[in-house]
């Protein structure tokens, strides 16, 4: 029941959260208050919005992640057939790792892995 199962688990999550939120929307007693719907930041009035441009450090790591995650996608099929292909697969993956390692070394030397 694999493909049906996917739908089932999707629906399960939907039901659990949906019921909980609908229940909490209708059942609990509500109260009104002037400052209740304000953003919570230390109690003093909030200064400006939070939808701002963000530290570039996070994006660098996201880009690094992208490279290595695509590499992981390439590695999974290799890992499955490694036992059958033996030496050929091993040498190929060594070459792959050397190139990848050079890339990592480059990022390292360029200080891309350093948090600012």
């Amino acid at each position, binding site marked *: 029941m*694999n493909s049906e199962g996917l739908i089932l688990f999707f629906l399960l*999550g939907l039901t659990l959260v949906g019921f909980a939120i609908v229940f909490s929307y209708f059942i609990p007693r509500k109260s009104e208050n002037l400052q209740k719907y304000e953003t*919570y*930041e230390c109690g003093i009035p909030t200064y400006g919005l939070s939808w701002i441009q963000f530290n570039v450090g996070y994006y660098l790591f996201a880009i690094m992640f992208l490279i290595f995650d695509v590499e992981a996608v390439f590695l999974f099929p290799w890992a499955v057939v490694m036992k059958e292909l033996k030496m050929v697969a091993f040498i190929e*993956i060594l070459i792959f790792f050397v190139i990848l390692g050079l890339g990592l070394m480059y990022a390292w030397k360029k200080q891309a892995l350093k948090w600012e």
Partner: protein
Amino acid sequence: MFLYDFSELTSSIHNSISSVMSPLATTVVEMVIAGIVFLLFYALVGLILVYAERKICAFFQCRLGPMRVGKWGLMQTIADFIKLLMKELIMIKNADKLLFNLAPFIVIIASFLAIGAIPFAKGLHALDFDIGVLYVMAVSSIGVLGILLAGWSSNNKYSLIGAMRSGAQVVSYELSVGLSLMTIVVLAGTMQFSEIVEAQNTGWFIFKGHIPALIAFVIFIISSTAETNRGPFDLAEAESELTAGFHTEYSGIKFALFFLGEYMNMFIVASIAATVFLGGWMPLHIVGLDSFNMIMDYIPPFIWFISKTAIIIFIMMWIKWTFPRLRIDQLLTLEWKYLLPINLVNITLMALCVLNQWHF
């Protein structure tokens, strides 16, 4: 050879239902049954884990923990759950309404999709894909989208910083999770969970793969702790600096759902570790000791699975309550400068072991 084979039970249920109904109705009825079972299991695991965390944390800190509600505080989590359910949901004025409401759905659905692929026992296995390992990695990384959305849509600086940290952390450590699982895939030669478990009939992979498997196991424990945003990697919700991180603005049951999602993710990574490294529901077998193996076979596979998972969860809680929280630069240094290169070397080592038949 196994005394407790659930596939016979499930197939007999399937036969009895399909004998009285059409194929479509059979599928629907089976899905409803499976759905109810999984929903109950999910809720039960959530309640038990929250209670266990509070108790274990208390014992590590020489306290007693919850003691008032029920015997040894056993009813505490249920009382908390009812309390949270009866709380009003607050919708922040400046928040992005749609994304704010969408975030808990994504977190919970991701954990449900992942929990379906876990083999609890022989035949007790809802989603058995031939790309099982890849599937679990894929769906468990959807959860971070929920965290990012929650942080962004709250329009709160604490939430935004928490979500950004969480994003950087989860995507970084996901690499290590994937590569350490890949080390075992090289040894097993398959990504299907049922086959991975069957292959550990003669010995768990952590013993079979000796040194590289052990390194991969340690890396997996570290990086999965980080991936589930648990201490000492809980920068996303570092309460001393970020209030509650990405779920600062969430109240009542929505907060509880994030909390539940976090605990379920912990259960999922622990059970993946148990399945891939510690043999899943396979009993402990030692080659040559036939009587010992016979006795071990009498313990039901479900008990084996749950106890292995429980041990790994205990180790993760132990780590959480023992180590101080890392700084974000230390966190990223640990991943990119230590775990990732070690992992790449480790995969090569494992490939060498498989090539030369150094495993047993």
